């Protein structure tokens, strides 16, 4: 069963613009993670936010978490062509490392 759902499914922007992706989930969580996947490759962890946190930053990435709405957003500022990839959210409800993934958002950044 899918715990997380990303929105939009696809996003196309110009280089330099900001990209925002959203993730909604169904049950209470211990943490939520965001991953990036380049075409045909494995997933790379970007950022993890715990249920008692509301916002985290890492370089050009900003993640927010609203547990009352069961949603999270990933903002990539000043996007670059190299940011073109699929982005996935994953939720861990057990705090035992087992995570459930959404379907992902495909981001295209045009140079």
């Amino acid at each position, binding site marked *: 069963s899918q715990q997380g759902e990303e929105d939009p499914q696809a996003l196309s922007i110009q280089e330099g613009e900001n990209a925002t992706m959203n993730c909604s989930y169904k049950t209470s969580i211990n943490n939520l993670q965001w991953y990036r996947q380049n075409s045909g490759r494995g997933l790379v962890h970007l950022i993890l936010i715990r249920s008692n946190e509301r916002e985290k930053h890492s370089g050009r990435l900003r993640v927010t978490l609203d547990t009352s709405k069961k949603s999270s957003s990933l903002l990539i500022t000043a996007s670059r062509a190299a940011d073109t990839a699929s982005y996935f959210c994953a939720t861990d409800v057990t705090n035992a490392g087992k995570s459930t993934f*959404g379907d992902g958002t495909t981001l295209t950044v045009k140079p």
Partner: protein
Amino acid sequence: DVKVTQSSRYLVKRTGEKVFLECVQDMDHENMFWYRQDPGLGLRLIYFSYDVKMKEKGDIPEGYSVSREKKERFSLILESASTNQTSMYLCATNINTGELFFGEGSRLTVL
């Protein structure tokens, strides 16, 4: 850096063949996972293991089995491959903090 190595990037097998997908990690992590990834369905958990000789079913275990004889190695076995098992298979590992480290993936085609 954590390194997760999957033995084969691309495999082509015939229906009914037995298929072994190997995954090795070098970070002494307890937890190891096998996911499959299909377009429109995201990542789905097949099996996972929290310790040597221990395994638990994920969301879609049917048609698969696993083996964990050593801490660093987690094998996914398709006893009799079928065409609906054509997919990208991703191995991942972590400790209980939630952040997953993925291999590069094994793309399996069953003819």
